[in-house]
């Protein structure tokens, strides 16, 4: 049954698989028992018997079964000597399986690994280059001290092998050896051989040598292992056009590290890299873009830069046709590139329109980029698009779309009226979460354009009853306080909120106190009761120190000098400016050097999410605690995060239980998981206050109310 099905599916598949392969595959399947079947009692015993069987097929099946057990996490290390016996074979597949087993369990049986050394050394002399490379590769993967001494001779031989395939495998093996024992690798001259291999005639060997050297360089303490000079540069540029896609990425990564001597050299290299934009593999394209973005720093010729920027746009757009995950990485990088070179995609807004079936994380990134690209010319198009998004069903996406409309209004003053109209249309849909989000962004619009859109306040107040989220409530209360003189029933509205003061979130409470003071200053006769009541509640019944202190300040101000209070509370506030999410220029440069990597996806410098093993984590933790103590003296809020940080750093995977208790942290932009993100943000703030500005809009939003009031004070 299964056999006929699967052979059918092969036939059906769009890709022509040669008939030979097909028949082989089918045969292969018929003879294959189910290796994942439930284990019986004494299974290892049976396996041992089979491994020592006199029949080849039986032995091979037993090895497969052992590997299957290993995959599902069962301990089959007890069979080590029996599996090892099967290493000496002409069957390449069996050999590979045994090697796979060896790589996994060598550490548990360091004494017995020695038994395998003989076969390894013999295999590195085999006439078949595949076996030679397989042996040297596996030897490198077995990280047992005792085997290292036996590794050097075969490795030396393989590095000089006539077959490029063996050479390139050996090149990677040097990096493995260095990882285990740097001195051995240097003393035996392997590292310098590797440096020579960059000039190898075969581009694949060059690529792997570059990969290995870059890796060694990164872990070395001196960082002088891999230095590109003029001759190697030429070699790399030649190899770049000839090697495989993965090799190209390695070479491009190496080029990115190179500092060109002058503008001319930079232009020359860039010229050789630009053709890679046409590569079918998105990661090659992104790596090429990274190199060019970095080299643009040293190019002095404005015309050349303009040309490059023009050439860069089409491949970036094409990346949006790739798989969603690659798109996501591309979009995060486009976000960075746009901050550096805003002109690059100025006419390409349409390609960022969300498709119905885009995954949510792609949609949210596209929104961010659309806001970045918005200008007077395309704003109408964008607004109708955003309005449509706001009628979709994914709540998170709808909210972000509404927020985006507000950001457009703040960014483009000519279009603010149109934006406000769209928001009013959306409020009239009466969809609860749309209304709430719209009110929040309208508050920001009011802060940017004071006294311009007061006409819409009645519409906002009509939706008072629908509000149940603290942020929306706080925003509306802020608007009521700010425009109290224009709202006839402002005192009634505030009063209704005061009745439920105790049940409100603290940011709503803060706004209530401020709004009632503003109301009083604007309408002293009618609001005296209200202000007294709100200050009373806030000072005597509220446990939150911020609210209480604020209330006291207001109270003192009002009682000593009402005029001064007026000057302070009702003074003109400077309008807010764009823009959330701006990255500081030093961080921006660092991110550009990291295009296409994880750092560029997170928009955070790499050291914030990388630990250097357990020891590294300890060091970072110590430093964090020191800084913590310092910080806690200055800011009491940050001290709360202390426990979180410790949890995060304890994570070292030696024990799964600790991990369960640790909150997952996803410092990604999607912000779908706001809680852990906040932790990481705090973490960041602690580690380098100067490089990270508080960019996260999530934290901004929470701070909004606080900063509003701060503004109010001055």
């Amino acid at each position: 049954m299964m056999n006929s099905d699967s052979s059918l599916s092969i036939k059906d598949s769009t890709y022509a698989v040669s008939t030979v392969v097909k028949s082989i595959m089918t045969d292969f399947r018929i003879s294959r028992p189910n290796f994942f079947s439930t284990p019986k009692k004494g299974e290892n015993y049976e396996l041992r018997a089979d491994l020592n069987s006199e029949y080849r097929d039986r032995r091979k099946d037993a090895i497969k079964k052992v590997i299957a057990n290993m995959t599902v996490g069962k301990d089959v290390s007890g069979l080590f000597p029996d599996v090892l016996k099967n290493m000496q074979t002409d069957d390449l597949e069996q050999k590979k399986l045994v090697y796979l087993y060896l790589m996994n369990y060598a550490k548990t049986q360091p004494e017995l690994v020695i038994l395998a050394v003989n076969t390894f050394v013999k295999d590195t002399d085999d006439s078949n280059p595949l076996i030679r490379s397989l042996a040297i590769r596996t030897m490198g993967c077995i990280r047992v001290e005792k085997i290292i001494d036996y590794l050097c001779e075969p490795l030396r031989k393989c590095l000089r092998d006539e077959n490029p395939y063996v050479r390139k495998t050996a090149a990677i093996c040097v990096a493995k050896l260095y990882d285990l024992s740097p001195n051995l690798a240097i003393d035996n001259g392997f590292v310098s051989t590797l440096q020579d291999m960059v000039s190898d005639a075969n581009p694949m060997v060059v690529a792997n040598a570059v990969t290995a050297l870059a890796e060694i360089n990164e872990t070395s303490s001196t960082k002088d292992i891999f230095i590109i000079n003029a001759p190697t540069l030429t070699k790399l540029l030649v190899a770049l056009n000839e090697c495989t896609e993965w090799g190209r990425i390695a070479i491009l990564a190496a080029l990115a590290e190179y500092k060109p001597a002058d503008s001319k050299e930079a232009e020359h290299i860039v010229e050789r890299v630009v053709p890679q934009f046409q590569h079918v593999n998105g990661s090659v394209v992104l790596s090429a873009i990274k190199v060019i973005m970095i080299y643009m720093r040293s190019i002095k010729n404005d015309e050349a830069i303009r040309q490059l920027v023009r050439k860069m746009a089409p491949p970036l757009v094409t990346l949006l046709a790739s798989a969603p995950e690659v798109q996501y990485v591309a979009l995060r990088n486009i976000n960075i590139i746009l901050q550096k070179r805003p002109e690059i995609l100025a006419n390409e807004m349409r390609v960022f329109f969300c498709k119905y079936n885009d995954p949510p994380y792609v949609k949210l990134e596209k929104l961010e980029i659309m806001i970045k690209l918005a200008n007077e010319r395309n704003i109408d198009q964008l607004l109708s698009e955003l309005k449509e998004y706001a009628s979709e069903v994914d709540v998170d996406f709808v909210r972000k779309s509404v927020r985006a409309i507000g950001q457009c209004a703040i960014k483009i003053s000519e279009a603010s009226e149109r934006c406000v109209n769209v928001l009013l249309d959306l409020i009239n849909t009466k969809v609860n979460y749309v209304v709430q989000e719209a009110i929040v962004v309208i508050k920001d619009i009011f802060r940017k354009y004071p006294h311009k859109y007061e006409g819409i306040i009645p519409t906002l107040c009509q939706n008072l009853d629908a509000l149940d989220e603290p942020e929306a409530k706080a925003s509306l209360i802020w608007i009521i306080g700010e425009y109290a003189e224009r709202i006839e029933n402002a005192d009634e509205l505030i009063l209704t909120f005061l009745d439920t003061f105790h049940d409100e979130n603290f940011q709503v409470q803060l706004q209530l106190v401020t709004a009632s003071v503003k109301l009083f200053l604007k309408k002293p006769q009618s609001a005296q009761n209200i202000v007294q009541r709100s200050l009373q509640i806030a000072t005597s019944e509220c446990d939150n120190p911020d609210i209480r202190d604020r209330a006291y300040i207001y109270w003192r101000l009002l009682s000593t000098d009402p005029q001064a209070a007026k000057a302070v509370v009702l003074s003109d506030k400077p309008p807010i400016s764009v823009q959330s999410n701006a990255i500081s220029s030093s961080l921006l440069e660092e991110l550009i050097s990291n295009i296409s990597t994880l750092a560029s996806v997170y928009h955070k410098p790499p050291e914030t999410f990388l630990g250097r093993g357990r020891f590294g984590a300890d060091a970072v933790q110590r430093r964090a605690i020191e800084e913590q103590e310092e910080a806690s003296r200055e800011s009491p809020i940050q001290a709360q995060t202390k426990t979180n940080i410790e949890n995060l750093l304890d994570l070292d995977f030696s024990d799964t239980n600790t991990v369960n208790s640790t909150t997952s942290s996803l410092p990604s932009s999607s912000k779908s998981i706001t809680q852990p993100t906040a932790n990481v943000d705090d973490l960041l703030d602690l580690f380098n206050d100067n490089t990270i500005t508080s960019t996260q809009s999530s934290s901004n939003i929470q701070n909004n109310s606080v900063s509003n009031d701060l503004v109010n004070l001055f």
Partner: protein
Amino acid sequence: MISAFFIYNQKGEVLISRLYRQDLKRSVADIFRIQVISNTDIRSPIVTLGSTSFFHVRHENLFIVAVTKCNANAALVFEFCYRLVNIGKAYFGKLDEEAVKNNFVLVYELLDAEFEMHLERTFCNAIKAKEVLDFGYPQNSETDTLKLYITTEGVKSERALKEDSSKITIQATGATSWRRPDIKYRKNEAFIDVIESINLLMSAKGTTLRADVSGQIMMRAYLSGTPECKFGLNDKLLLEKDTSHKGMARKSTAVEIDDCQFHQCVKLGKFDSDRTISFVPPDGEFELMRYRTTENVILPFRVHPVVNEIGKSRVEYRVTVKANFSPKLYANNVLIKIPTPLNTASINVRVASGKAKYVPAENAIVWKIPRFQGQYEVMLSGDAELSAMTVKKAWSRPPISMDFQVLMFTSSGLLVRFLKVFEKSNYTSVKWVRYVTCIKKYDQICGAMRSLLI
């Protein structure tokens, strides 16, 4: 780079686990299961826990997961995961739990194998295969190369194998790793298929927000020896530049190509300098290039939907479709999917041609028209009865999607001007060109006509 690689089934059971570096323990697999698979809130494809990052891609009922502990090249990791999926599909027809379980040894070999060459998009005849990752660095992934190497070795005689393997290693590292040197055909033929798919976004009022064409040029080369091919399109940039064609560079027929990508056999440097496409093709079928155009896109169909929600219990549909291409041509297998609300109870449809019926499983009216002549217009009218719901949740109004093929028609107007083959032995070859326009289903490269309903 990549420290470990796992494949899970939907339940989170590990099907394949391969560690490349020692900085992780096998138990890291459990962490992904607990934190991502069983946590439905996570929407991002990248999750970092502590200093360990998990990249995952979902395919069929599998999670394909790469784990790193460094500042990895994220684009590379994802491209690699997809390449693995493609190799799996080429090997097993379909890459799902069943296929992985039945072929786990093969999957290990693939993974284990360094990704030596380029995981390739060509699925032509098998040549040989290499390994996928070494120390977590992608090595080779040309399916052809991978294939022969991995599937045949158990069968072939030892001597044949030895000869074969030395060939493999030479080919894997050689200048034209995608082609064996000793190919012979009695009849030298090359087929070129131009396949275009349209991405269309329309506003509620029927204006086109965005229409672009993404095209693929597939080639099937059955050519002997090591042929050098030159390939010419009516590329506007090239025609304007080329002095000999200046007279005939009729601007109306030239196509402006926004961007294109090539198979690795194409000499990119040459294309960059003078926009000529020259290459030594792999044997068999491969994707020669992909391109994108946005200028002067000719839409083969116009769809005018009118959808009214009448009260809470009824939705009325009137959808007209008109073919815009010449009456001499016709479209095959036209399939139009018109979404219906989730609480649809029954549906009544009338169509002038073809067959339409309600498919509850897809929440859509599926309208099939086997043959659709150019300039022809058809209409569907009908209404849906909705069952009462306690909670009135807005209907998201998904897009209408279309799926069809029009032979000998390209939306972009792209034409193949020539294909020249040069070989030492100077044989003559026969070349065939075929043009197909299709809208792929929107879950593919996306041909969704969004928001037609709104």
